[in-house]
């Protein structure tokens, strides 16, 4: 494995793991003391579906986010945060598809360039 491939893999993996929807979902499950398996029961999906959402293997449809907010009895502002997290994650997911295609075509330079242009010059910038 070349160093470019290693770095491209690392960038792709980091971007795939960045999922504001899952961040919000985990936060609310934790706050409400509800297990993923219990949530699965409440919104009538299988526990593995929830697990796949959380690991990024699958992505929920928009209506499921609404069901989750209702099942967890989230107040309006938190429900909005969950939905916004889903929207951002969805935009990233669509953008990620281009990078994944480049990666499959062994165009590691494109993946690295995107990573560098997005983040390297922002290294010292924090979302205060």
């Amino acid at each position, binding site marked *: 494995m070349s160093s470019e491939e290693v770095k491209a893999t690392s960038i792709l993996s980091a971007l795939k793991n960045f999922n504001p929807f899952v961040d919000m979902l985990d936060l609310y499950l934790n706050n409400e003391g509800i297990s993923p398996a219990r949530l699965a029961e409440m919104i009538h999906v299988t526990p593995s579906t929830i697990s796949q959402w959380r690991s990024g293997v699958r992505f929920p449809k928009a209506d499921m986010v609404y069901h989750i907010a209702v099942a967890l009895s989230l107040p309006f502002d938190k429900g909005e945060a969950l939905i916004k997290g889903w929207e*951002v994650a969805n935009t990233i997911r669509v953008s990620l598809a281009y990078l994944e295609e480049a990666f499959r075509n062994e165009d590691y330079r494109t993946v690295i360039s*995107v990573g560098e242009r997005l983040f390297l010059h922002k290294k010292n910038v924090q979302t205060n």
Partner: protein
Amino acid sequence: MSSSANRNDKLDGIVAAFEQAFSEFHEMVTHCKDSSLDDEARVLTSSYDSLVTKISIPWDPPPSPNSMSSTAVWQEEVDVISVPSRKFASDDDVNTVLLNSSGDQQARRRLHIDLGEIQTADFDLAQDILRTPPDDKLTFLVNSVTEQKIDRIIIQNDSIPTENDQEKDLSGEYNIDKKVASLRKKLKGNFLILVFSILFLLASIGLIAYSDSASTITLRLLSLVAIMSVVTLSISFTSIVFLSWVRGKMLSEQMNEIKEAKTSVRLANDARTVVLLPRELVHA
């Protein structure tokens, strides 16, 4: 249009799409802060910082086995690693403070150090790594701290943990080894006590036989008290032995898990700081 221009257009498109996504993300964080959703803002910020950190790590090709220096080979064998703090000006100043060393700037290597649940930091490490015998410590000379989140890191001085510290903290492999050895020692003592208890019990049975034939009430009462005392002691000692055995077994399992995880653990001398270095990252 040339293929190079096509490629640049494609790249611009992908970057623009991501920038749009992250712009929405930052709006979301701002909205959370404005709405007093502090937990949400904190989780999102932490997640973004983690992403930036992961992508920002410069990537050098791993050294080939032939080009690996003797120092690098030696690093692979090391289990206990310390990152000494040389000069922290003050708590308020840690963002900008440089950790001084005499290292060669050209030979610096980067090492990603995971400092536990909230801390992630990048250190520039000097190539000139010193060994401090005889306690298997590896001392990195830290040239500078480049990660903005350094203010979360508490690094203490580099003195050897005291006996007392080792007893206080069970996180380190070395401490668990000591604990297990200590428990095994106690266990041997407890078994001796148990043997004596059994001997006492046998003696008490003999006493019962004697008391049956004892002529006076006083002798019978005395032997009854002796029997009850010995039985109580036997039960107590048996419980102690059993509990010690369980505890020793649990600690042994914990120790094995740590060994299998191949993590290197270093305890600072005040037991407040634990530096965990996955061994493979020593070569990063």
